[in-house]
């Protein structure tokens, strides 16, 4: 084992995803550069990665969110951008966490719709979210497909 010297100690990295009909990741990046205040910004195909001191990163993200609040999503990242242990430039193929993002981004327009309608929603109305109890254990059409695949 060799000695490990961490880079970017004391910083945080956050992902900013944009899934919007009105804004592209490129638009978001240009706006982010304008207000960057010394934080490190990396453009990606889905949005940005922002690295810096926590208060600076949060300030930039707060301003970016205002551009399209229901379509910009943020989460923490453990690694800094370009880390050779995670960056696909070194590893080849997608990094492991990409599949989770890919799956959630495919559903995120439903969440955006929920965020847009939240303000106009009657506060007295009790939410009835999709939950493990609400769905059938196995949909009939799915069962039929399984039977057909086994017969083939």
């Amino acid at each position: 084992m060799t000695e490990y010297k961490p880079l970017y100690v004391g910083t945080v990295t956050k992902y900013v995803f944009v899934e919007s009909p009105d804004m592209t990741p490129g638009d978001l990046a240009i706006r982010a550069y304008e207000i960057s205040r010394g934080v490190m910004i990396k453009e990606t195909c889905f949005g940005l990665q922002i690295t810096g001191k926590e208060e600076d990163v949060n300030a930039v993200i707060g301003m970016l969110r205002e551009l399209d609040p229901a379509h910009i999503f943020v989460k923490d990242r453990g690694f800094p951008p370009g880390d050779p242990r995670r960056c696909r430039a070194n590893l080849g193929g997608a990094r492991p966490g990409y599949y989770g993002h890919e799956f959630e981004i495919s559903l995120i327009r439903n969440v955006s719709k929920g965020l847009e309608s939240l303000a106009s929603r009657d506060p007295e109305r009790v939410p009835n979210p999709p939950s493990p109890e609400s769905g059938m254990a196995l949909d009939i059409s799915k069962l039929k497909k399984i039977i057909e695949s086994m017969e083939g």
Partner: protein
Amino acid sequence: MAKVFIYPATSLILSDLVARFGHSPLSAAIQIRERIQTPGLDSPPLQITPEEPKKGLKYAAVEVPSGVRGRMSLYGPMIEKAEAAIIINDADYAFGCMGCARTNELIKFLVRSSGIPVLDLNYPKSEGEGEEFVAAIHAFLKELGESG
């Protein structure tokens, strides 16, 4: 501001919604960042050292595979700190190249047995479900804010 454990701990949707509604999400990235930014011996890719499965003994017995115990050294302290939890039950991607089905079962068990308020959900598959999904999380977190 309450500390809310999210499952899957890498979920973008949950992490965003919890932070958006004014609370602090407890996600895997925070634990990984802590290890990545601590000097020591090089142990790529996640800086999980042989010490982690020992720390995991607090949550799982010694005969449990070291992979489960190593993961629990990340998730266990977060569950202990959590004041509430949101669980998405149909997250198939939590089991695969980076996930472990047995750890996931243990995480859910520990969350449920800790006595903290838990919101059980599935992913929204339509816009209608999305509205209810967001409203449920908003109402749950608002209640936490009022009681906390």
